[in-house]
């Protein structure tokens, strides 16, 4: 089903452009042209976030925090094996995906822990990464409120994920 979606969507746009006599080649090229300056403007923010994540991981701070927070998370119903995933996801999608496959091989793909990890991975976002990129060209520097709200909401859904995987 979903395999057809993007091609069909694209086909509709192309048919429309022919009906409306829009020059499809000119329009597509013009849009594509803006991608390079766009990505260049994001790059410095991206590199800062990646440097931060890498240092955080290598210094052992991320392990320290996951050990520190594991008992707290446990009270809320998040298994201690998943603490690191919950902590990494806001910073790095690829880091979280690596932890996810580690959990798969360690505990089995269909185990409670693995299913739980999938739901946590799928229902949360890389909050800091999105903040860095979305506000890359923005003048506003007041990011604290939006980031805190997003983290609280994501955390609530992690707790919910561990609960719902018990019954579903």
């Amino acid at each position: 089903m979903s395999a057809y979606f993007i091609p069909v969507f694209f086909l509709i746009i192309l048919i429309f452009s022919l009906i409306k006599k829009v020059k499809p080649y000119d329009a597509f090229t013009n849009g594509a042209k803006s991608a390079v300056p766009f990505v260049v403007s994001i790059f410095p923010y991206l590199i800062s976030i990646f440097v931060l994540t890498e240092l955080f991981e290598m210094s052992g701070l991320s392990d320290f925090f996951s050990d520190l927070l594991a008992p707290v998370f446990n009270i809320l119903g998040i298994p201690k094996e998943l603490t690191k995933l919950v902590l990494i996801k806001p910073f790095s999608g690829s880091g979280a995906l690596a932890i996810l496959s580690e959990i798969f091989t360690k505990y089995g793909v269909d185990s409670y822990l693995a299913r739980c990890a999938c739901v946590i991975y799928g229902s949360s976002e890389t909050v800091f990464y999105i903040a860095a990129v979305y506000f890359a060209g923005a003048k506003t520097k007041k990011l604290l409120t939006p980031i805190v709200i997003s983290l609280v909401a994501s955390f609530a859904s992690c707790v919910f994920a561990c609960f719902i995987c018990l019954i579903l």
Partner: protein
Amino acid sequence: MNIIFGLAVTVSVGILICTNPDGVLSAMLSGGEKALNLTLKMVVIYAVWLGIFELLDKTGLSDKIAKLFKPVNRFLFGSIPEKAGDFISMNLSANLLGMSGATTPMGIKSIQELEKYPGTEYAITMFFVINATSVQLIPSSVLALRTSMGSASPADIILPTILATLLSTVIGVLLVKIFVKGKK
């Protein structure tokens, strides 16, 4: 961001100086390398999507999508400028359909457009929170990974994921409505 970055980097570097001084620069460079790899992938994805979006815009289809989203936008963001509404609508539809390559360029454009007008802090915060709590309906990357690792029923996690992601977005929207003041 300055506070988070400053604190986390200072403490990390401080620890590394004591434990592994050679690791500092190599960690920073490897972070940079990952950022560059991602950027190279993004140029291609964004070029294709921005090309498609330009077509959408020129054919007037984007106005139609925006019309569909008008009631939703009004409820979430209050009164917003029309052009920003167009970008936001496209970002939201790309989010819902899991076109992850398309969400970011439209997201950045939405925020830049909103910023041109005074009194849009509320709308910007709301828009960011919705994006950062993920509204994706089909977790395709997780499904692919589960299938490749031989899961008996990879689709098991779709329903719980949809419920959890809906919950996070609802909580996010409510928190913004309660705690962020500004023009609605």
